[in-house]
């Protein structure tokens, strides 16, 4: 029998197989030889590319309905960025109670999406379970908490969006109908319960064992014009000092083809990768959090920035807390907008819009003509912007953890990808580790 080689001298290949799914396809390859990471490739197939072509020739008013279909988890993000872009193209800014209602609906999406990822997809990684189903036997209360929190967000979407999936009430300029204060009132109690539960969850995430890994990311997030934590709109800012409006995105970022992926990779024009999503928002907009969320973050051991991607579960819990609290605040302050939408006049022009999807900034650009027909559409989703950062995380993590057993390395590579809550996170266990013994 040949004795196993030392980890540092053997070749390893960590590979994902293509996923047999309707809406997405992901795969990953990591090759290691003699302690050196030779290759890291993350391949993601991005449905939004089809939608860009589909939007051409359609009416500008159809943007929220068509783009809502891009994602079942974050339709509000697509609708919001799309509406902002169209409104800019029409020379209008939507403010006041309509904007606040948008932000409230967006909080519902954050709550749903973050609760799903944090409890059901990411927590099992840390607690050592194959899935949320396996976790439910020992941590029933945690899974119940996940479902109740998710439902509280869901009810917000139903009350404002008209239904939980692919909301039908948002339109360019605002909403078809604004809910009354009475219609929002029943949402308060479930949100209050979720707020209490989430305080415990933030504390719980602080007790999880974090793999030791940090990187010097360039964070990119929005900065809210009212100084609040960025959700529904804002200027694009970075930890490197960038501060630009949505329409300047193309001057600073570029998307490019890479041989191993169907999805475009984003990077800074001057070459570097960047990170979008909870850690970027948290690190760039800590001061925009509520006092409660800031205190919870501090008690959980977070500083005003966070550079360990595995700690994103703690950051996501803090953001979940904030989104619930913000939803309660917005309901309390709610004024029913009348009329529920601003009238838009189409004109020849270009508009850009950007908002903070749960996974990071989502940028849209539309060119429309005076009849309102869309001449060109571009959508840059957060997961494609994070692809390089994910690959670099994997490269750095694997290089620094070759002493781990194959099983542990596989587990933590999966975890490293799920740190980003990528749209391919549907595949709870999609990595296969092949060990080639030289």
């Amino acid at each position: 029998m040949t004795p196993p080689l030392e980890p540092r001298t053997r070749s390893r290949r960590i590979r994902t197989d293509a996923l047999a799914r309707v809406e997405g396809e992901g795969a990953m390859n990591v090759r290691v030889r003699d302690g050196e990471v030779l290759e890291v490739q993350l391949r993601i197939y991005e449905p939004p590319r089809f939608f860009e072509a589909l939007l051409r020739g359609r009416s500008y008013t159809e943007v929220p309905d068509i783009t809502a279909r891009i994602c079942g988890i974050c339709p509000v993000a697509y609708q919001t960025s799309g509406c902002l872009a169209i409104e800019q193209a029409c020379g209008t800014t939507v403010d006041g109670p309509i904007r606040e209602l948008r932000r409230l609906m967006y909080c519902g999406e954050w709550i749903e999406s973050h609760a799903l990822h944090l409890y059901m997809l990411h927590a099992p990684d840390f607690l050592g379970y194959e899935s949320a189903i396996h976790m439910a036997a020992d941590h029933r209360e945690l899974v119940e908490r996940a479902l109740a929190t998710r439902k509280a967000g869901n009810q917000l979407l139903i009350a404002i969006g008209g239904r939980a999936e692919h909301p039908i009430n948002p339109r360019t300029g605002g909403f078809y109908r604004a809910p009354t204060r009475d219609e929002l009132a029943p949402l308060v109690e479930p949100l209050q319960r979720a707020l209490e539960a989430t305080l415990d969850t933030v504390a719980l995430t602080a007790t999880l064992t974090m793999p030791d890994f940090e990187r010097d990311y360039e964070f990119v997030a929005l900065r809210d014009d009212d100084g609040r934590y960025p959700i529904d709109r804002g200027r694009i800012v970075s930890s490197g000092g960038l501060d630009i409006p949505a329409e300047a995105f193309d001057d600073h970022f570029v998307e490019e083809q890479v041989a191993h992926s169907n999805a475009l990779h984003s990077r800074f024009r001057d070459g570097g990768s960047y990170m979008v999503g909870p850690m970027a928002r948290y690190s760039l907009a800590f001061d925009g959090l509520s006092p409660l969320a800031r205190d919870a973050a501090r008690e959980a051991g977070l500083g005003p920035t966070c550079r360990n991607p595995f700690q994103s579960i703690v950051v996501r819990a803090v953001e979940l807390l904030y989104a619930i609290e913000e939803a309660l605040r917005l309901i309390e302050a709610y004024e029913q907008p009348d009329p529920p939408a601003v009238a838009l006049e189409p004109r020849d022009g270009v508009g850009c819009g950007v908002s903070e999807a749960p996974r990071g900034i989502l940028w849209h650009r539309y060119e429309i003509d005076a009849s309102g027909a869309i001449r060109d559409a571009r959508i840059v989703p957060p997961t494609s912007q994070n692809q390089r950062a994910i690959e670099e995380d994997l490269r750095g993590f694997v290089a620094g953890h070759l002493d781990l057993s194959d099983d542990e390395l596989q587990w933590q590579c999966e975890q490293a990808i799920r740190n980003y809550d990528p749209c391919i996170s549907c595949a709870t266990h999609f990595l296969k580790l092949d060990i080639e013994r030289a």
Partner: protein
Amino acid sequence: MPNAFSRAGAVVIGVGNEFRGDDAAGLIVARRLREQASTQAVVLDWEADPAGLLEAWMDANLAIVVDTVVSGAEPGTVQRFDASTVPLPARLAGSSTHALGVAEAIELARALDRLPGRTIVYGIEGSSFSAGAALDPTVERAIDETLTRVVAELGVRP
């Protein structure tokens, strides 16, 4: 809304994506069933995250879920599974577009004692899932067959 059907004895849930070819099959079965005036069951179209199914079938004693599946069978094949006491076959797991699929939602419900006493899944084998594609003719026929079988299962006359 969950509370509206929480008293229901039976709930039929058609799962799918309207704009993804054969993936619409479950939704179409649900819509046709709803058009039948004599249907006593609560009928739902489900395009959302399947995690919400745990709410949708809460308090029902019979849940019938209809979904498009990819199991390797001939397109248009209708398979019936009784998931009341055992999980769906492994070949049906992980084919969802989102984080939790129907199979996972069923197992999660089982772990939390939230699974209806009888949980039946009808799987319609699909073949084409392109955006905007029409239904495969074999799937059209399978929708009719499934509708007949679901009606029989509910014990009501069309």
